[in-house]
């Protein structure tokens, strides 16, 4: 328990983590406000295929903040502590204090999941409340289970970023892969145009948990989506745990 507490304080003490926290909190509600006129027109014209998706769609982009949190949880440990000591990293101090590596990883993951879940819940509530406020009855009231699914998606994406960064031990690779994939025309989404199997890539399959009108060639139910994404994250976390256990720090 004290390990989780320590990891929480370490994460919340990082300025970059606060960038991720604030960005994640503000991006989705800001998008709702920015897109409000266009959304209102689309709703009036009846070209929105599923009106219940309207608020949730913005959460898919706000997840960038959760990704940054997942990356800095790990990359902060691997950054050199000072210009004159390029070999000294916080990780060595962390491992001196908590030598059992699997427990350390579990504590880090728990701290990250906790913070991102709180962030995701607050963002989802703010985003959906704003959507209801701006569009009124044109958008059906959000179902609590779908809000829970959206928060789960945020948490899983953060853990995915955490696992990839642990494997690569480099924040640049994770950030590049994940940002390219959360771009407006996501790369995974384009791949689904080439092969339907790409619909089961972790980021795009996860969105099925809380979005209904994703244009992919296969139909995936929310429950299947949640299980496939959880399996992806669990597999990557297991690989990351194995490598972290075996490699020199």
């Amino acid at each position: 328990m004290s390990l989780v507490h320590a990891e929480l304080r370490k994460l919340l003490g990082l300025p970059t983590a606060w960038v991720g926290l604030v960005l994640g909190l503000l991006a989705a509600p800001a998008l709702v406000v920015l897109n409000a006129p266009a959304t209102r027109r689309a709703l009036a014209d009846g070209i929105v295929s599923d009106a219940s998706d309207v608020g949730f769609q913005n959460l898919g982009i706000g997840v960038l903040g959760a990704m940054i949190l997942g990356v800095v949880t790990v990359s902060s440990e691997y950054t050199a502590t000072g210009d004159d000591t390029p070999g000294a990293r916080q990780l060595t101090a962390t491992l001196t204090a908590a030598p059992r590596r699997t427990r350390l990883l579990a504590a880090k993951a728990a701290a990250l999941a906790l913070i991102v879940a709180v962030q995701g819940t607050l963002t989802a509530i703010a985003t959906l409340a704003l959507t209801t406020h701006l569009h009124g009855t044109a958008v059906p009231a959000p179902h609590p289970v779908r809000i829970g699914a959206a928060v789960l998606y945020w948490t899983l994406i953060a853990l995915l970023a955490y696992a990839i960064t642990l494997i690569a031990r480099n924040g640049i690779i994770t950030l590049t892969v994940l940002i390219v994939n959360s771009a407006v025309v996501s790369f995974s989404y384009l791949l689904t145009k080439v092969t339907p199997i790409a619909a089961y890539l972790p980021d795009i399959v996860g969105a099925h948990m809380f979005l209904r009108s994703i244009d992919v060639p296969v139909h995936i139910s929310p429950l299947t989506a949640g299980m496939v994404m959880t399996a992806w994250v669990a597999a990557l976390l297991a690989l990351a745990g194995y490598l972290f256990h075996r490699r020199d720090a």
Partner: protein
Amino acid sequence: MNALRAEIGKLLTLPSLWITALLTLAVTLLLRALDLPGSVLVHTQAGLLVFGVLAATHEYQGGGQIRTTLLALPRRLPLAMNKALALTIVAAPLAATTALLGGDTSAALPLTASMLLAAGIGGLLRQAVAGVGVVLTAYLIACPLLRARWPASDPWLPDTALLDQAQGLPGALVWTAATLGAAAFALHSRDA
């Protein structure tokens, strides 16, 4: 002349830059082979942007190579100019090759400009991960969103040049010059 050669040498001997360049070219080829809808360069420009950021930030990573560089070349504005020139010389062929593999040779100039812009951001932030985060978010998320919301902003966004050169190239060049200028000024006025 020596200073320029030294900067080119530093860029050409960095493993991280070679890895980034080769990965970018490989992914471009792979995506071309998959026959994705739309230009593959919109995606693979991410690799070139990372290249630009790394080229500018590598001297600030652990060890602080920048201080050795400044010991050898204390005049900071000429140093900034040499760095920009060296990166242009290294980046232009890479951008051209990527554009060729991506199937749109006219994209070489906008891609080079984007790499220099990324280097400017890297020089301002002096932190590779932060630089990559900012540049990629701007190019792949913020700019497309702005374009969708306010189509009139099109000529002023730095990434328009890749999609429509006549429309976006002047804007992209202004962005690049402004960022490089700001980075040079920061190098001039900040403690290293």
